[in-house]
């Protein structure tokens, strides 16, 4: 269950990209999760089999960092505070660490669906 995204559509068109990029940068800064030290992929809802499996497949250090970020964000949220600026997520650190794994699992599931729906035709020799 990766997040719906029009990123590919936009990225393919360079004029649109040039036009959208400042808007996107402003939006992710304004969304506020970076001020709590989170990454965009931390916001993907966990309540699905796919995401749960993807979380299990995370490399150990990524999984540890994720838990740390979440706990820190809860603390900030409880105490109604933002992190000091140097601890907030920098835009270059806000990479997709979970989405590629989710996409891989989704591709696996889609392939399984396709193979289940296959009709076998006998080859004429």
């Amino acid at each position, binding site marked *: 269950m990766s997040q719906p995204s029009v990123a590919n559509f936009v990225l393919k068109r360079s004029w649109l990209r040039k036009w959208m990029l400042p808007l996107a940068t402003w939006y992710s800064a304004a969304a506020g999760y970076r001020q709590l030290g989170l990454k965009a992929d931390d916001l993907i809802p966990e309540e699905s089999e796919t995401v749960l499996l993807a979380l299990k*497949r995370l490399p150990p250090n990524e999984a540890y960092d994720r838990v740390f970020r979440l706990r820190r964000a809860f603390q900030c949220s409880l105490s109604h505070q933002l992190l000091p600026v140097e601890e907030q997520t920098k835009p270059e650190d806000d990479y997709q660490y979970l989405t590629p794994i989710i996409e891989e699992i989704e591709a696996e599931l889609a392939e399984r669906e396709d*193979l289940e729906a296959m009709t076998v035709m006998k080859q004429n020799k």
Partner: protein
Amino acid sequence: MLSRSSLGRGAQRALRRQCCSQPTNRRGLAAPASGSFAYQTGDSSGIKVATRDLWGPTTTLALVAKAGTRYEPLPGLAQGLEKFAFTSTEKRSALRIVREVELLGGEVQPYHTRENLILQAKFLRDDLPYFLELLAEVTSKTRYDPWVFDEHVSTLIQFSHRKFLANTSEMALNSAHSLAFHRGLGTPLFPTSSHPFKKYLNADFIGGYSGRAFAKSNIAIVANGADHSEVTKWVSEFFTDLPSTTGLSSEQTKYYGGEERIAHDGGNSVVLAFPGSSTFTGGFYKPEIAVLAALLGGETSVKWASGYSLLAKAAANHPGATVSTKSMIYSDAGLLTVKIDGPAKAVAGTTHEVVKTIKEIAGGELSKDDLKKAIAQAKFKELEYGESIRAGLELTGTGLIQGGKPYQLDESAKAIEAVTEEQVKKVAKELLDFKASVSSVGDLYVLPFAEELGLKV
């Protein structure tokens, strides 16, 4: 009357196939076999290939890699690599591989022995290119993902570990091997503890091992029921990405011997092992050992009788005990094993009788008839074992990788035929001079110590 058209295209095609499209290199049944299993050998872009074009609609193809438990640098690597075979590759997923193989009606099976890792495929003759490509992909493009290891491979290895721990006779055999050879050939076939998959194994290590296990010089491709030129052609086309690193090697095996006793409540097994014979090309070949194994025997070859070999007669006094004697041959050493399974008391009684019988042979009590029977049976067993496709594929592959020529079955059968009474007596005496490897698994209160049996350990 049947009209010509009602015969159907299938029948017509079958007729046509019979009369016209005979490959020119096919030998008739009566023609003498050239090598051992009549495998044609060759080299295709640095990879050794052996084929045997038997008439028949199916093909058995095997990739034999010299990467069994003997050669693994860390415990469990050979089995890890075996379990990784036919999982996702860079080109297709594990699911797709399974479905495609199913659609073609074939079957793939990876397994490992002490010396070899074998990826075997059985399929209809026409699908040869597909399966050769699949084997090439599995050996050079498998993705050794950590999550595949966590989710599948380590679970499968744990299962085999538990299965192994439940089987006393497997445990006794493996323990006898480790007593006899310590490291190398003595490495257990399956994990004896959870150490391998908890401590030593991970996807990266297995991936690294695959690079050496599937090096060009370390593998051979053996096909049963396929045309030689076809196989060489496709091998040179598909197997281009294999690394040409040096293969795996291990030191010359040395025999040690000793005793091990393992308490177990799931059954009783005793294995008495003595230094045996290597393969024919291995340098330590002793045909007498095969004859002695047949002479001791223990398994019945006729129905409704306990058998007429010496140990079968001995075991008949202890109902419930089963005895089997095997000469296990490896490339540079061998082990003559007598395995006794059954209820504790019967096993203990039979074990005493087994040692008594070996001592009698060493002392010279050996009837001519028994020897004649044993030689005939040893020869039959050797030929029959070699003829079975599965063993034939492995033996041929090992022979190719290690000696450059397939296993010489004809010659070893001839050597067995020439064994004399003196040789058998001498080898039996020699067995008792060596330290034996005695492994007892089960009810240790009843099972005898080697000392009580009168064996040196």
